C-alpha cells in the first residue's frame, strides 16, 4: 500500500510508532497530486509549506508530543483563508487574493500538527452541486461508469475535496456545507463527509456564502477519520459570535460500534416521486443494517420537508447577496477597467459583472430581489417562518425519542460533466433535496458510503443527528460502515 492511500487513523499509528515519517507521507501525497492533473482537484499546491510543516511534525513526533493530526497531510477547500496562500473561493473576482490572516479552522488544524498540501477546487463561492461553476474549471471524479470513459462530477460544492480524498491525493480534506456541499460530493465519490451542528466549528476566516447555513466539516476515508478530524477543527471561537461555547467531546471515544437500543427514524416524506429503485433499495438495506446491529427502526414524519428547497433558495441567496456585497473591486481581488467618464457605480457594476460567474450573479440578483421593498414579507420573511416549521418537525421527532434519522444522501449517483448544462437552474437545485433540511435546522449530518449502483458508482446514506451529538451520530455511521463493508476504490485512470 502506498502511503497516500492510508487512512488518518492508520497513518497516525504508524507515525507515532516511528515506522514512517511525516516527511515521506507528505512527499507521497505531493507526488500523487502532481500526477493527478486530470482530476483538476488541486488548484494551488503548497509544497514548501507542506515540507516545512512535515519537518516540524517529525520533530514533534520525535519529542513524543504528537497530537491527533501530527504529520497528517490534508487538502484545504479554496474557501478557507490560509495566510499568504492564494484563496479564491473558486471565483475570478478573488484573483490574486492572498489573505494576510489564517482561518480559525486551518489555524487549529496546523496547531494539531496537520500538513497543508494545497487548496482544493470548488464551485464558485460554494454555489453549485457539480463543481462546474468553478473559475478553475470542474474537478473530475476519480470514478467512472463501468465500461465508459465519460468524465463524471465529484459533486459540489466541495468537489475538489471529494475527488482528492477519493483518489488518495491526501488523507483527508476540509469541506463546507451550506445546503449539502460536504455530504453530496462525499456520497458521489464513496467517502465519508460530516456536516457538524451549526456553531460547532468556527466560521471565522472562511469566505462566507450564507452565514446562517454555512458550516465547515471533515471529508475523509472513514468514519473514524471524520471523528479525529472534527475533534481538531471544532471548538469555541470568540471571533465568530455564532460559535458555541461548549466543550468539544472526544468524538473518537464515542466509536464503540454498539448501537443496541438506538432508535432510528425513517422519514416518510423523503420517499420522493421518481426516486430511482437503486436508491430506494439502498435506503431499505441501510435500515436493515441498523436493525441487525440492534437498533430499533421506526417510521417518522417531517411534514414540511417539501418546502425546504424553496425556503432554502430564498434564504441562501438573500444572505449571499448581502455577504457578497463586499466584492466591489476596491479592497481586494479583481477590479474592472473603466472608460473615461465612468464613476464609482460603474466600477462596482462592471467589476461584479466580470468577476462573478453566471450562477453567482443569478443568486445575488435573486437575493437582492427577495430582500427588496415590497417583496421582503412575501419571500424572505415567509421563508424564515417556514424554516421555523422545518426545525420544529425535527424537534418533534427527536422529542419522541428518536436518536438519528436515516435517509438517502442524494437522489441519484454522480452525473456526467456537462450533462446538466441544458437543464434550468432549478433542476440542479433538486440535487439538494435530502440535504438542505439539515442546514435549515442547524443539525449535524453524516454521509456514509453504503453501496454501488448498477454502473459501479458509489451511493451514500445520510444520518441526521440531534444537535451537538456528533459523537453518537458518528457511532451510528460506524455501524453502517461496518455492515456495508464498502471499501471500493476508483480504478486509477488519471
Amino acid at each position, binding site marked *: 500500500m502506498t502511503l497516500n492511500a492510508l487512512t488518518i487513523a492508520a497513518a497516525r499509528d504508524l507515525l507515532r510508532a516511528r515506522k514512517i515519517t511525516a516527511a515521506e507521507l507528505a512527499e507521497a501525497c505531493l507526488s500523487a497530486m502532481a500526477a493527478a492533473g486530470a482530476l483538476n482537484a488541486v488548484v494551488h499546491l503548497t509544497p514548501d509549506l507542506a515540507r516545512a510543516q512535515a519537518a516540524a511534525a517529525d520533530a514533534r513526533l520525535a519529542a513524543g508530543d504528537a497530537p491527533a493530526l501530527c504529520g497528517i497531510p490534508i487538502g484545504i477547500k479554496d474557501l478557507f483563508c490560509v495566510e499568504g496562500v492564494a484563496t479564491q473561493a473558486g471565483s475570478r473576482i478573488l484573483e*490574486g487574493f492572498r489573505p494576510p490572516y489564517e482561518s480559525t479552522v486551518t489555524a487549529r488544524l496546523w496547531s494539531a500538527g496537520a500538513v497543508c498540501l494545497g487548496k482544493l477546487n470548488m464551485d464558485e463561492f460554494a454555489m453549485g452541486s457539480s463543481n462546474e461553476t468553478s473559475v478553475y474549471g470542474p474537478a473530475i471524479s476519480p470514478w467512472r461508469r463501468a465500461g465508459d470513459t465519460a468524465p463524471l462530477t465529484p459533486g459540489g460544492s466541495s468537489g475538489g475535496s471529494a475527488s482528492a480524498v477519493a483518489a488518495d491525493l491526501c488523507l483527508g480534506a476540509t469541506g463546507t456545507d451550506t445546503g449539502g456541499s460536504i455530504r453530496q460530493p462525499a456520497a458521489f465519490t464513496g467517502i465519508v463527509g460530516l456536516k457538524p451542528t451549526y456553531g460547532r466549528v468556527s466560521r471565522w476566516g472562511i469566505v462566507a456564502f450564507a452565514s446562517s447555513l454555512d458550516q465547515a466539516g471533515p471529508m475523509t476515508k472513514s468514519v473514524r477519520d471524520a471523528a479525529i478530524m472534527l475533534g481538531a477543527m471544532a471548538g469555541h471561537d470568540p471571533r465568530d459570535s455564532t460559535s*458555541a461555547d461548549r466543550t468539544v467531546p472526544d468524538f473518537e471515544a464515542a466509536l464503540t460500534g454498539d448501537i443496541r437500543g438506538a432508535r432510528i427514524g425513517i422519514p416518510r416524506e423523503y420517499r420522493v416521486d421518481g426516486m430511482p429503485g437503486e436508491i430506494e433499495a439502498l435506503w431499505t438495506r441501510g435500515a436493515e443494517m441498523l436493525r441487525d446491529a440492534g437498533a430499533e427502526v421506526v417510521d417518522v414524519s417531517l411534514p414540511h420537508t417539501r*418546502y425546504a428547497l424553496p425556503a432554502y433558495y430564498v434564504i441562501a441567496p438573500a444572505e449571499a447577496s448581502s455577504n457578497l456585497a463586499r466584492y466591489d473591486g476596491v479592497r481586494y481581488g479583481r477590479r474592472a477597467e473603466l472608460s473615461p467618464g465612468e*464613476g464609482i457605480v460603474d466600477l462596482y457594476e462592471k467589476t461584479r459583472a466580470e468577476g462573478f460567474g453566471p450562477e453567482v450573479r443569478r443568486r445575488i440578483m435573486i437575493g437582492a430581489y427577495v430582500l427588496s421593498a415590497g417583496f421582503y414579507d412575501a*419571500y424572505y420573511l415567509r421563508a424564515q417562518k417556514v424554516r421555523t*416549521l422545518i426545525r420544529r418537525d425535527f424537534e418533534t421527532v427527536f422529542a419522541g425519542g428518536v436518536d438519528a434519522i436515516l435517509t438517502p444522501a442524494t437522489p441519484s449517483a454522480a452525473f456526467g460533466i456537462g450533462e446538466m448544462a441544458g437543464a434550468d437552474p432549478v433542476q440542479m437545485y433538486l440535487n439538494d433535496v435530502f440535504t438542505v433540511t439539515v442546514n435549515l435546522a442547524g443539525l449535524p449530518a453524516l454521509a456514509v458510503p453504503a453501496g454501488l449502483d448498477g454502473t459501479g458508482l458509489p451511493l451514500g446514506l445520510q444520518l441526521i443527528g440531534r444537535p451537538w451529538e456528533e459523537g453518537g451520530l458518528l457511532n451510528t455511521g460506524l455501524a453502517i460502515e461496518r455492515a456495508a463493508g464498502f471499501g471500493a476504490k476508483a480504478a486509477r485512470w488519471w
Partner: protein
Amino acid sequence: MAIDIDTARKAAHLARIRVEEGDLAALAAELSGILGFMEELASVDVTGVEPMTAVTPMPLQTRDDAVTDGGDAARVLANAPLARDGFFAVPKVVE
C-alpha cells in the same frame, strides 16, 4: 410571479451587477423560473409562526468593549487593486 424586464433591470442594479440591455429579457425569464419554484411557500400556513432568526438558541455573546486589533494598514491594503498614501483609491466620488 413573472418578472418583467424593468424588474430584472432593478434587481441587477440593486445587486450592482451590470447587465446589458439585450440580456435583460433572458434574465427576466430565468429569474421568473426560479421565483416560480419558490411560489410553493405561499401555500404554507404560517399563521402565528415566528420567523427563525437564530439557528442555535443561545444568548448573544459579548466581549469587553476594548480595542483588540489594529495598526495594520499595510496588511489591510496589501490586496487592494489600487492604493495610494495609505488609502484605498477609487474614481472620484464627489465633484
